[in-house]
């Protein structure tokens, strides 16, 4: 990946979640799309304000469903194959395909792979782990975003982005500060 230079975006800091949501709404209404809020706990209103609809994305849920189906099928097929072909046990002539007994490990594996898919799928969709991110360069970000401050970042690759205009928009929304974030 080529070394990126220049600005990642403009980062505005707010003291309360209400101020953040209002600022996010105002920026969205001003036509910005490439932006994100950074908060110390999940705020659904902020997601609405920046136009992000997770249920519509269906990412995590889809991966979870797929993982569950594949996990359950895999175990059921393994059990059937082992019990019928690979290692058949003749116990007083009882049937080899005793599927009720196979349901239990298959059930457990459905949950196992659905859960692993949900967890790791969430991380993958979020592009995590990513130990480096330009936002960590902002001087006030690390002291607040994971404890008690609320941030809105307008990203430089938004077509409407311009250092001066975006800055004056953010400054009109009563932030504590607005800083430029370097790559």
């Amino acid at each position: 990946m080529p070394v990126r230079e220049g600005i990642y975006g403009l980062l505005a800091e707010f003291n309360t979640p209400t101020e953040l949501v209002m600022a996010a709404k105002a920026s969205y209404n001003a036509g910005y799309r490439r932006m994100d809020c950074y908060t110390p706990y999940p705020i659904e209103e902020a997601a609405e304000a920046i136009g992000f609809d997770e249920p519509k994305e269906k990412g995590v849920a889809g991966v979870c469903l797929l993982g569950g189906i594949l996990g359950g099928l895999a175990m059921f097929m393994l059990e059937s194959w082992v019990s019928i072909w690979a290692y058949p046990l003749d116990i007083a002539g009882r049937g080899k395909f005793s599927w009720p007994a196979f349901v239990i490990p298959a059930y457990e594996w459905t949950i196992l792979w659905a859960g692993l898919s949900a967890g790791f799928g969430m991380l993958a969709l979020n592009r995590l782990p990513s130990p480096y991110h330009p936002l960590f360069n902002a001087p006030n970000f690390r002291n607040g975003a994971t404890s008690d401050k609320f941030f809105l970042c307008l990203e430089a690759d938004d077509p409407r982005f311009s250092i001066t205009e975006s800055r004056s928009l953010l400054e009109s929304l009563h932030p504590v500060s607005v800083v430029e974030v370097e790559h």
Partner: protein
Amino acid sequence: MATKNISPQDPMIDPETGEQLVIAPGHTFRSVTEKLARIVLTTHTPLAWFFGLALAGSIAMMLMVAVTWLFLKGTGIWGITMPVAWGFAIINFVWWIGIGHAGTLISAILLLFKQKWRNSINRFAEAMTLFAVVCAAMFPVIHTGRPWLAIYWLFPYPNTMNYWPQFRSPLMWDVFAVSTYATISVVFWYIGMIPDLGTLRDRAKSKFGRFIYGQMALGWRGSTRHWMRYETASLLLAGLATPLVLSVHTVISFDFAVAIMPGWHTTIFPPYFVAGAIYSGFAMVLTLAIPIRKFYHLEDLITIRHLDNCGKVMLATGFIVAYGYMTDIAYAWYSADKWEFFMAWNRMFGLMGWSYWILIVSNIAIPLTTLWSRRLRQNVAFLFIVSLIVNTGMWFERFVIVVTSLTRDYLPSSWGTYRATRWDYMTFVGTLGLFTFLFFLFIRFLPMIPMSEIRQILPGAKIDEAELQHKGGD
């Protein structure tokens, strides 16, 4: 300003509802973050922590000794014999797994029911689950005597002997139930911790701390898009963990219920095992929470409301367990089967009858008569004692189920008795030490109360809708 007859109101009681508050008033995002992060990031570890860790560690050493000797000599050093081939190993296995279940109940089922009060206690309840599963899973493995061979007995993998396991056996079901339970518990616990690890990364002063927590936080930065996917993943994991936790103790009860032993072969076992698991698990939550909140001064975050609610859950599940005991006796009477009838009589009045009465006194007589009282439920010392009594009682429940049935089966010629040896006791007490040791490490190095979830229930987290309507949307 003088007003008349205003009694000094208890600040912990909500004036509107008259209920105990979930979190003491006056906390802000910063105060909660600092209070909880300081426990982990402090450079002044309390001396008592070192003392506790050393004590628990030396008890865990006993486990090391007992298991080493077991691997050298074989399972003959235990008290297991014919007819009681399942002794302490299975009793401790079932007991420990049951304790783990309350952690999943708190973190998953109460999340689905939107019980916000659980937010302060879910993290360490999940840690309790993990460590309990570690202790539990050890028993069936060492019970095989030669666990390095057990890999091909238990796991289906292509091996040079062309051998495959028998999937119709409840013991194989156990393997998948317990291994899934352990894996999903780890994933749920770790994912829940990622935002808090981010907080620790950003607040750590030492370079080493920043590096370690930074690696563990995976670069979490609190992006709203991330949070929304994270919330969906948490809900899905909770939705998966709920049927999982119910299935695990059900599968474990199949170990017994699928056999034809009198006293085991009953359909009541699955629900009765699950209820007993939650009963003992909540007791263990109290056993852990009460000393921790006192020692780390967390009374503001783990409040009387939490303890009171745990007491209520214990009361409810305790009655399900009591119903199970009565059903057992009713089955014996109604079945008109003389072996079942003899089993019930033998449990109560036979050679091992004392263990049944310990179980009745400590699981039913003491807790189910006292936990009705709000005053007793809110009495911390009393709750602590009851939690210890219930855990003892639940251990004896497993003892009664395993030993009384096996020592007196159908043929008097195969009757026997059971006496645990010092190695059995050392292994059991050793796992208590291991559990405590792991718990001490956890409360020192990881955030034991989820900061990000506490923030959500603070008054400052409310979005002011009126202001939004007024100013926003222009």
